[in-house]
């Protein structure tokens, strides 16, 4: 015990130089606590705080740049010490006691974990102290003759093939399935000379190709618009007149008079 004082100063000095060797403030605190030679259960937190603050103080004299966590811990310990020694009231005193006990508990936990690390390291470690069979023999034989199949992947493959098959074909124009303007033009020109009365556009639509099948509405609309376009074309040439009495009303047409002196 007599040599504890110089020893402590000595070790504190060495700690400064080796601050980098510590894994953070808790590591240093634990080392300081162990230097106190007390059972960690009866550790003196205030003495520990003093030592830590002294080390940090020294360290700052030597190296101004010190990682924040060292300083944060120093500030917290200084606060803790003041509360422990001079609590303003009972509540503060209890708080400080609890904080000190928490700290001691964390130190004990770290100490226990270091103890476990040392215990592990003290065992015969595989590949270091004891060795397993160097040339293991493997008796497993792999039989790859079987096939792993499932229906979903077969179907997925089919879909993928079809999709790719379709995309790899070049551009192919779709066959014309609708009544074209050209066809409507021919039909109109053919039917008009018969009469000079007004007729609705619908009367010039082509007959349904398949009598039995219900009319295809899309084809019907396509035929209607083609016939209208053909009608407009003929009207522009002066071959027919077009008439619509109200917006969206029926469109009617008739053959134009020869004179063209109308209206």
């Amino acid at each position, binding site marked *: 015990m007599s040599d504890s004082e110089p020893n402590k100063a000595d070790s504190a000095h060495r700690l400064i130089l080796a601050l980098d060797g510590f894994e953070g403030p808790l590591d240093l605190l634990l080392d300081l606590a162990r230097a106190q030679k007390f059972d960690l259960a009866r550790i003196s937190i205030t003495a520990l705080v003093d030592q830590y603050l002294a080390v940090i103080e020294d360290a700052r004299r030597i190296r101004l740049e010190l990682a924040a966590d060292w300083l944060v811990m120093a500030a917290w310990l200084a606060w803790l010490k003041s509360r422990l020694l001079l609590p303003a009231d009972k509540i503060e005193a209890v708080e400080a006691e609890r904080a000190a006990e928490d700290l001691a508990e964390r130190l004990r936990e770290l100490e226990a974990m270091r103890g476990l690390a040392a215990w592990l390291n003290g065992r015969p470690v595989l590949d270091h102290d004891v060795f397993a069979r160097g040339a293991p023999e493997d*008796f*497993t*034989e792999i039989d*790859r003759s079987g096939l792993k199949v499932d*229906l979903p992947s077969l*179907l997925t493959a*089919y*879909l993928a093939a079809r999709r790719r098959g379709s995309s790899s074909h070049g551009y192919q124009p779709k066959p014309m*399935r609708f009544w074209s303007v050209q066809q409507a033009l021919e039909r109109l020109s053919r039917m008009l000379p018969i009469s000079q009365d007004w007729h609705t556009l619908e009367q010039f639509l082509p007959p349904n190709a398949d009598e039995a099948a219900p009319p295809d509405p*899309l084809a019907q609309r396509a035929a209607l618009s083609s016939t209208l376009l053909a009608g407009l074309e003929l009207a522009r040439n002066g071959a027919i007149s077009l008439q619509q009495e109200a917006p969206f009303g029926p469109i009617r047409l008739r053959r134009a008079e020869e004179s063209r002196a109308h209206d």
Partner: protein
Amino acid sequence: MTEASPPLSTAERLLEAAIFAAREPVPLRTLATLLPDGADLDATIEAVRRRYQGAGVDLITIGQGLMFRTAPDLAGALRKIIEVPRRLPRVALETLAIIAYHQPVTRTEIETIRGASLSQNTLDALLQADLVAPRGHKEVPGRPTLWGTTPHFLATYGLRDLRDLPKRSDLLIEPDPPKPAEPPTELTPEPLAILDPADQTARAATD
């Protein structure tokens, strides 16, 4: 229980451990360096060998070195066969799927549907796995082979019947690709194009 065997010498134990732990057969000269001074290498090796006589493991000489090996008569009992079924490659799977759906189908037709050429390897793999088989010839110039699936195909996929495959109309959400130049329609049990493009568009319009 009462084994009267005398304790083994360190030389013998070291030799045993070194040969056990080494990755390669241990050369005799390496073993010699391990032994305590005065120990006789040959005698020590002989002692270890004798101790393993009749055991599950033999001490054998390989080249200039020593190693332990499992006794040969046990190999059969120790053999463990692990079945690792392989998966069909994607190309083979696609081809198989097309044959399943379009059979009987010629190679050219398969290529048209997949939009890629079909290698002989792929067809061979399917033949070897007994999943497809020739189903006569198509009566067109050149008389190409027609392909179809085998009963083994049904068994492999756990199908009772080809009709157990989901219908193409239940599968193909997208419009059919343009028909191949030579539509195999008249040959397939089901018409190739289940959805006529026109039909489909019409339906979309009324929906």
